[in-house]
C-alpha cells in the first residue's frame, strides 16, 4: 500500500511549481530570488466587460451591422470613439461608452473590456526561480527546514518563529500574547481561547502554527488576517514530537507560513518553510513509499492521534480494532507508551 507522507525535514530542497489557471504573463526570470508574497505571474481573469449591440444601435440587421463595425479585436478605444456605423451627420453610430479594449466580436455584438484587474500568482514560497513555463508559471526552489501541516486558513505570511512554551501541548492563551510578539510567528500546542487569537491579531503577529485548534474557533480563524497552520488538525491534540523539536531548533529564524488549503488531488498542503541560506543543495524528500517494518509513522486519528512510533510488524486484514472494524494494520511501538495495533489507513509515514 502506497503510504501517505507528512514531511518534517530539518534540511531539504523544496521545489514548487506555481501555475496560472489560464495563459498569462510570467513576471520573473530564471535566477531571480523571490519572497513568498512576490507575484511571479499574472493572468487577465478579473476583467469586466460591456456588450455593445451594433445591430440594435444602428437599427439594422446583424449581417449589415457586422459590416459596419469599424474596430477590430485587440484595439484600444477611448470613451466616445465610434465603433460601428458610418461617419457623417445624420448617420446612426455606435460609440464606446467608456475607454477599453475590444475583446471579442460575435454576431455584430462587440465585447468591450473596460477594466483590467489582473489576478496575480504569488510565489507562496521564498526561493530562486529555476524554471519557467512560458505564459503559465514558474518553478521555485528553496533550501531549508520544512514542516507540513494538515489545515491552513489560506493566508500567507513571513516572520520570526517564536515558541510560546517549552512543551508540545502548550496551550496558547491571551496572557501569553503581548506587544513584544509583534511580527512573530507563534508556535504552540493547542488553542481553545478566542481572546488569544483576537489579541494576536491586534499585536499583530505574522502567523500562528498550532498542533491543533478547537473547531469552535474555525470561523474566527478563517477571518483572521494572519496565516494559521495546523499540524495535527482540529481538537486538543498536541503537536507531534518531531515537529515540535524541529521548531525548537529553528526558533528565532525567519519562516514562511504558506497556510494554503489542503487539496489531496494536487498534493497542496499547508506548510512552514524556514529558509537556510548557504546550505548547499540537499536532496529533495523521497516522494513515495510503502509501509514497512522499522519505519517511523504518525498516527492520524483516534486516542493516539499525533503520536509517533515505529512499525514493528504488519498485521493482516483480519485484524480487528476497538471500533469493531477489521483492516490491514501495523503494530506500532510508541515512544514511551508501549505498542498498539493501528489500521494502516490511520497512519502516515514521516518523511
Amino acid at each position: 500500500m502506497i503510504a501517505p507522507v507528512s514531511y518534517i525535514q530539518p534540511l531539504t530542497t523544496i521545489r514548487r511549481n506555481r501555475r496560472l489557471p489560464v495563459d498569462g504573463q510570467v513576471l520573473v526570470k530564471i535566477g531571480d530570488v523571490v519572497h513568498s508574497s512576490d507575484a511571479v505571474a499574472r493572468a487577465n481573469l478579473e476583467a469586466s466587460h460591456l456588450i455593445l449591440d451594433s445591430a440594435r444601435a444602428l437599427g439594422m440587421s446583424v449581417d449589415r451591422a457586422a459590416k459596419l463595425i469599424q474596430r477590430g479585436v485587440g484595439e484600444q478605444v477611448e470613451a466616445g470613439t465610434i465603433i460601428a456605423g458610418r461617419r457623417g451627420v445624420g448617420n446612426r453610430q455606435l460609440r464606446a461608452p467608456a475607454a477599453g479594449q475590444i475583446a471579442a466580436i460575435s454576431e455584430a455584438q462587440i465585447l468591450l473590456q473596460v477594466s483590467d484587474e489582473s489576478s496575480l500568482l504569488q510565489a507562496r514560497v521564498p526561493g530562486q526561480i529555476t524554471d519557467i513555463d512560458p505564459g503559465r508559471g514558474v518553478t521555485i526552489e528553496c533550501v531549508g527546514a520544512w514542516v507540513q501541516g494538515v489545515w491552513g486558513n489560506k493566508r500567507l505570511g513571513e516572520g520570526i518563529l517564536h515558541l510560546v512554551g517549552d512543551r508540545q501541548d502548550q496551550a496558547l492563551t491571551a496572557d501569553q500574547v503581548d506587544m513584544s510578539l509583534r511580527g512573530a510567528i507563534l508556535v504552540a500546542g493547542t488553542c481553545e481561547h478566542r481572546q488569544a487569537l483576537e489579541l494576536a491579531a491586534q499585536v499583530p503577529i505574522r502567523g500562528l502554527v498550532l498542533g491543533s485548534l478547537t473547531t469552535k474557533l474555525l470561523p474566527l480563524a478563517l477571518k483572521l488576517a494572519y496565516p494559521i497552520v495546523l499540524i495535527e488538525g482540529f481538537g486538543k491534540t498536541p503537536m507531534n514530537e518531531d515537529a515540535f523539536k524541529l521548531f525548537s531548533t529553528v526558533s528565532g529564524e525567519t519562516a514562511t507560513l504558506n497556510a494554503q488549503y489542503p487539496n489531496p488531488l494536487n498534493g497542496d498542503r499547508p506548510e512552514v518553510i524556514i529558509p537556510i541560506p548557504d546550505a548547499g543543495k540537499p536532496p529533495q524528500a523521497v516522494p513515495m513509499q510503502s509501509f514497512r517494518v522499522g519505519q517511523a509513522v504518525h498516527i492520524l486519528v483516534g486516542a493516539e492521534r499525533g503520536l509517533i512510533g515505529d512499525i514493528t510488524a504488519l498485521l493482516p486484514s483480519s485484524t480487528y480494532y476497538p471500533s469493531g472494524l477489521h483492516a490491514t494494520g501495523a503494530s506500532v511501538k510508541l515512544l514511551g507508551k508501549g505498542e498498539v495495533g493501528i489500521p494502516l489507513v490511520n497512519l502516515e509515514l514521516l518523511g
Partner: protein
Amino acid sequence: MIGPSSTQSLSLVSIDVGSVNTRAFFFDNVEGRYRFLAAGEAPSTIGAPAFDINLGVLEAIDQLQEFTGRTFLSDRGLLISHENVDGVGANAVGITFSGGPPLKVVTVGLLSEVSFDSVNKLVRSSYCHVVESLSLNDRRRPEAFIDAICQTLPDLVVVAGGTNRGASRSVIRLVNYLALALNLIPENQRPHVLFVGNENLQEEIDNLLGALTTLLHSPNIRPNLDQESLGPALQILNTIYFEIQAKKLSGLKELRDLSEGQIRTPALSLGRVVRFLSNVIDAPKGMLGIDIGASNTLVASAFAGDLQQRVFTDLGVGGSLPGMIAETHLAQIMRWLPYDLSEDFVLDYLHNKPMFARALPASQEELAIEQAVARQVMRLAIGKSLDLFPPNAIYPLAGTVPWFDRILVSGSAVSKAPRMEQSLLIILDALQPVGITTVILDQNSLVNAVGVGAEIDPLLAVHVLESNSFINLGTVISPVGNTRGNGSALLRIQIVREGRKEDVVEVREGGISTIPLSAGHVADVYVQPLQNVNIGLGPGRGGWVRRVVGGVFGLIIDARGRPIQVPTSFNRRQEVLKTWQDALTRS
C-alpha cells in the same frame, strides 16, 4: 469495454475507482451461473503522493490474484482476452470511475420551469458542480454572465432551450453571449459545449461555436413542452466527463484505453441496476438505490423502468463532508449517538474527517459518529430527491418518500458496519421508508461492477443479484399516520408459511420488532392495522401481503412513525437507541 464475441459464458474483471478506494472484482461462471468470486481493494492513487490512478488499480488486482490464485497481470498489463482459460486472466473487463473532482459546469437554458430546469436536472444526474447559470429569467446584465465564465473557467457548458420547432432567437441570443465569453478564454482552455436544445438550431449553433471549442450535440432534452428526455444526453455527458477528466488525471487515459473507451460512471451503473430491478416490481411501487461514498452520494429511483437519478457531489462521508456540515445542525448528528460525547468532540471529529477521508474510526464512539454522519448524508440526499419521485406513486404519508418495494443501499459507511443491525438501522433511520419494503445491502460494494457487467452480459446482473452476494436484510413494514402515542397496539400480524398459519402477533406503536423469516424462505403475511395507520394499502386498511421473502432480520415492523422522533435528553435518547438496536440484535 472488452466484451464477449458471442453468447458464451465468460469471466469478468471489474474495476471501480473511487476517490478513496479502488476495488477489483472477479466474476466467473460456476455451474452455469455467474458468481462473484473475489474482490481486492487498495487506496485510490489519483492524488498525492502517487498521482497515477493505475498504481491503485494494480494493487487492487494484485490482491485479487492473491485471493483467487489466478493470474490477472502480466508484464504487459491486465490479461483480458476472449481466449483466456481457467486460471489465467479474464474474458472481459468493465470499469467504473468517479475518483476525480466533479466537472465545473455552466448551465444555460431559457425558462425556469422548462428547459432551464431540465438542463440543471441533467447535470445533477452526473458528476457536475454548477458554477454558473444563465436563463431568460436572469435579471443580471449579460456581461455579468460573460465575466463569470472567465472567472470560473468551467470544464463544460451545457446549453438547452427551445422545443424542436420552438424558440430559436432567444436561444441564439444566449449562445452568442457564450461565444463572446469563449473568445476571451485562451483556446486550449476553453470549456467543451454540449448543446441539448432545439435540434433545428444545430447548424446555427455549429456556426457560432464550432470554430471556438469542442461542440457536441445531443437529442433535445425537451423535444416538446410536456416531454423531458434526459437519457441520450446523459450518455453523452458520461463520455464528456471521461474525456475532460482524462486530460486532468494521470492514468485515466490508460484506464479508458483498457476498457476500449467504454468506461462508465457509478451513477450510470447504479441507474442500470435500479432500472433493471424496477421492471420486476409491480407498479406503482418503485425501486430505490442509494450509494453513499466519501465524495459523492447517488440516488436512483425507478418506477416501471422509468429511471430518475441524482448525483450529490457535495454530500459524502469523507472529502465531501463539509457539504453535509454546511446544511446540518449539530443536533441532527448528536441525536443518533448512544454515547455521551461533547459537542466539541463531535465537531472536531467532523472537521478532521475530510482531511483523513480514508481513515477508519478508532473507537466505538468514533464509529457511532461516522454512522450518524451516514444517516444525515443519506437523509439530506433523499430529502433533496423527493422531486424525482412520480406524483402517481403510492404515498402512504404526504411529504415522505413513496412506497418503494425494494431499497438497495451501497457504500462502505453502511455496508461495512461491524454488525448488520447497525447497517439496517442506518438505512431505516436515514431513509425512513413507508409501506412494505425489502432492504438489500450491497455488502461487497458490487453494484457498480454489476451495472457495468450487465452491459457485457445482462445475465451477469441477473445471476449476481439473485445470489447471496447482495444481502437481503429483511422486509420492513412501516405503518404511518396518526397514532395514539401511548404505546398501544398498532398492528396485528399473522404469517402463513407453506399453508400453515402461525400465531397472531400484536405490534405496539413506537418501536421496532421482528418476526423470524429466514433468508430465502417465503411466507404470506396478513397485516391488520388496529389504529388509523397506513401500511400502503390505505388508512386503516389491512390485507394480505403475498410472497414476502425472508432476510437476515426476517420480517421487521418499524412502528416508530414518520418522521422518527429521537428524544433530545441524553439519558432518554441512549435508552431509546439501545431499545431499537436490541430489538434487532435479539432477532
